[in-house]
């Protein structure tokens, strides 16, 4: 019997999952307008293939992949292309986006299509179908899934780990996915095992989701070596490298990819999205989003068409409470505060958390007292206190030498800091400054 080995360091923030953990997934009505940014995934932005005035059906391709590390984008509702122009993006910049006016009378059924049968396809054909389906990592980073399914030849992959940790507070979308559609998630796992030629898969789920663990165990096929592994509850267990350590006991070396230790990690949502391609033939045009927090009147887990504006999504959830102070995309640990509620939900949006002033911590920043709590919290064994000092002095090169690249901005250091020092924010802009220096340039 496999036992969770856990990982070292990390923190235990209040979970706040009780608001939405028991709420069944519901489908939100189609909004009046859909905004599909061409940059929703890691890699090259997609290239639009429609022009203003074109009519598109639900599931039609509106933008094609630009290269291998890129995915196409599909219309999440039937309608007319109103505009292809700059639009506010949830990362705080503006991005080119295809704006659709949704046809209010459309039946919103996709066009008739041929659904491929994956058993009859070669791994390369399945990978192509996954790319054509626009599938990306649904855990937040939005890295194209087909790239992860095509590991370089020199690495022998022996295990697929399915990430059901969902360690971010408030978020319950993966939880509900596993509790309500374990069959689809496991079908996705089966397809991935076929593609990668892997004999062993492990689904890691934190113990605070007993119904999801039970549902997955009940649906687990007996002909394959798939283990449902309950994990102790700790943040940031859902981080790829932490999860690998918790499941296999192996630490991924600094600067190396998980595949270098023979492991590929996929999110449960991505597994379900892969299964959906071969089940209904639909590309990734909608995703499950948790809307939660004190500042939202009717929290829930919703199936949201990709490209729904935040304001429309929040309206469906009863709107904002009068004392709502901050809208965050993602969870409160790693999520990014939003300036513009016209920005749309993208493929990587796991949740929308609305905090009130009462649920936020004081903002007064005190000097570092060198208590060392951030060192005990950092899951990748950096020295956040020292790095923070260097960031304040803009000594980015010294930070790079102290392995800033290993920081995944999990926010554990900021969370434990008794002086309220916004350490992970400092690291975020230091990383941006280093990227700018490296000549990669800021995203347009």
């Amino acid at each position: 019997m496999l036992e969770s080995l856990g990982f070292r360091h990390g923190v235990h923030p209040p979970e706040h999952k009780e608001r939405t953990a028991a709420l069944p997934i519901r489908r939100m009505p189609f909004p009046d307008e859909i905004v599909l940014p061409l940059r929703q995934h890691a890699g090259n932005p997609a290239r639009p293939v429609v022009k203003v005035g074109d009519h598109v059906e639900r599931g039609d391709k509106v933008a094609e992949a630009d290269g291998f590390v890129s995915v196409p984008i599909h219309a999440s509702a039937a309608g007319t292309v109103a505009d292809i122009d700059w639009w506010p993006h949830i990362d705080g910049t503006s991005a080119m986006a295809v704006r659709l006016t949704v046809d209010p009378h459309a039946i919103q059924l996709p066009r008739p299509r041929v659904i491929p049968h994956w058993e009859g396809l070669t791994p390369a054909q399945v990978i192509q179908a996954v790319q054509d389906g626009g599938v990306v990592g649904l855990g937040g980073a939005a890295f194209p899934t087909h790239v992860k399914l095509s590991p370089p030849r020199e690495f022998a992959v022996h295990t697929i780990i399915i990430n059901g940790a969902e360690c971010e507070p408030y978020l319950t979308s993966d939880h509900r996915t596993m509790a309500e559609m374990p069959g689809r998630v496991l079908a996705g796992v089966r397809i991935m095992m076929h593609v990668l030629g892997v004999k062993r898969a492990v689904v890691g789920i934190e113990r605070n989701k007993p119904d999801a663990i039970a549902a997955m165990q009940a649906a687990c096929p007996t002909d394959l070596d798939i283990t449902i592994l309950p994990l102790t509850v700790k943040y940031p267990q859902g981080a790829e490298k932490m999860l690998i350590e918790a499941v296999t006991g192996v630490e991924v070396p600094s600067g190396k990819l998980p595949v270098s230790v023979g492991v590929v990690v996929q999110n449960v949502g991505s597994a379900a999205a892969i299964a959906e391609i071969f089940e209904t033939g639909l590309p990734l045009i909608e995703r499950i989003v948790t809307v939660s927090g004190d500042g939202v009147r009717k929290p829930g887990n919703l199936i949201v068409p990709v490209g729904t504006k935040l304001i429309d999504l929040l309206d469906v959830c009863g709107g904002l409470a009068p004392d709502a102070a901050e809208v965050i995309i993602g969870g409160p640990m790693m999520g990014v505060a939003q300036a513009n509620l016209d920005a749309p939900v993208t493929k990587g949006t796991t949740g929308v958390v609305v905090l009130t002033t009462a649920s936020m911590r004081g903002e007064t920043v005190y000097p570092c007292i060198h208590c060392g709590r951030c060192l005990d919290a950092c899951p990748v064994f950096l020295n956040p206190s020292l790095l923070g000092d260097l960031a304040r002095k803009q000594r980015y090169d010294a930070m790079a030498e102290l392995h800033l690249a290993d920081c995944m901005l999990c926010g554990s250091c900021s969370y434990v800091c008794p002086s309220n020092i916004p350490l992970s924010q400092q690291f975020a802009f230091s990383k941006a400054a280093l990227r700018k220096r490296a000549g990669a340039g800021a995203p347009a």
Partner: protein
Amino acid sequence: MILQSVLILGGVGFTFAILIALANKKLKVWDDPRIEAVAEMLPQANCGACGLPGCRAFAEAAVAGTVAPAKCNVMNPEGIAAVAAYLGVEAGAIDRKVARLRCAGGTDVAVQQAEYRGLPSCAAAAAVAGGGKGCTWGCLGLADCKVACSFGAISMNAQGLPVVDLATCTACGDCVTACPKDLFVIMSESQHLFVQCRNLIAGDDVLAQCRVACTACGRCVQDAAPGLISVASGVAIIDYDAALLADPRAIARCPTQSIVWLEGVQFAEARPAERSMSA
């Protein structure tokens, strides 16, 4: 006994003294004394704005004749003349370069969409939802450039825009690196025509974000000499290679005053009353 040691030590010392004297004669590298003199005359700011690694390197290049004294961006004209006179060369055309901000969206004209609370730094704010300004290209006004400027040439005005003091600016480019929105450019002070906007949204929609944004209407393109100004991806672009054709008439019909004719400091005077949009 004492005499013996004095003789030995004295002899050793004398031998080495002769060796050193010979080596000094034989191995001497001749150093142009003018390099030291010119380096003394230079401002010793070591800012690198001339493109050379520091003032000493500039002095070597100036003595070698590969760089004209006027290329030093920090010295005043008298200083340049003094160096030129000392070396007996032409001072070269003085082409002072300064930093200019491609944004005029101060707090009085640009919309702030959300309140930013956090580290008082543009880079930090840009990492959180872009800083909350309506225009995602615009100046955040948190003075990273002022902090970065080692010459104290940048001050923030009442509208939250950095004002570059042209006399102290050395065009070293530190503000260009510091700005997370890439708003600063280094350009010749003699170039007067300038577009104070980077917003790529075309059309009047952009005015909801900022009253002084470039709407890419193209009036300046028509009014300027052919080929001087073009409109590409939502913003007017001036071809500075054709800048001899520049003329203040180009800005006459700009509805938002995003293209300006700069004589001196940017944002020097109070903003004139809003012009009619139907011009």
